[in-house]
């Protein structure tokens, strides 16, 4: 059920470095962005590209490592942007 999960997206260099471009993660509680990153890194060696210097958006707005992540949220990790 989407209410008990979060959708996590990856972009650009990070997307190519990780085994999957996005994951649906069991997430029944409210915790921080940092907790979510730690949970993903705990998946194994392939996930160490998910470093703490990446940018993060929660529900499509820029967020810090201490921002809360709730069930149903959409979270994205990505490198510094290079548009324009």
């Amino acid at each position, binding site marked *: 059920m989407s209410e008990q999960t979060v959708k996590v997206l990856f972009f650009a260099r990070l997307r190519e470095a990780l085994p999957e471009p996005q994951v649906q993660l069991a997430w029944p509680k409210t915790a921080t962005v940092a907790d979510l990153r730690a949970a993903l890194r705990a998946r194994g060696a392939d996930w160490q590209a998910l470093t703490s210097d990446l940018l993060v958006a929660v529900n499509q707005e820029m967020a810090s490592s201490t921002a809360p992540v709730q069930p149903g949220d959409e979270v994205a990790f990505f490198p510094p942007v290079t548009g*324009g």
Partner: protein
Amino acid sequence: MTDRILVQTADFSFAAEYDWLVSGNTGDGAVVSFVGRMRDLNLGDPVAAMELEHYPGMTEKSLQALVAEARGRWQLGRISLIHRVGRLEPGDQIVWVGTTSPHRGDAFAATDFIMDALKTRAPFWKKEITAEGERWLEARGSDVDRAQRWEKNSINQQE
């Protein structure tokens, strides 16, 4: 007060965008525009093409937020902001920003600000395709420095 904000793979027409800014608009004497174009060299290497990735959903939201912030800071009439995504080649147009205002200082500052904010806050990423292969562009410190000019209490803050 009207905004036109687009994210698209298609090219845009400089002339058509200008017309949108000025038609029926005799109150704003100043029109400032910026176009960012793809260069044929980067860091000295010839670049054959570029792939522009973005975060659909967040992209337009973030552009709308930049434009709203500009409206809060300056007196502006019309604003248009177009960013392309997908495959681009040297000389291709990448981004357009146009603003109108009764005061030229406001139009200059807003256009400059929108570009600086976009370069550091809007979720776009460029991958270059060269003869040697592909590489993701690195964010530049100079863009971060330019964006910081607009922060409250910045010593270089304009207006």
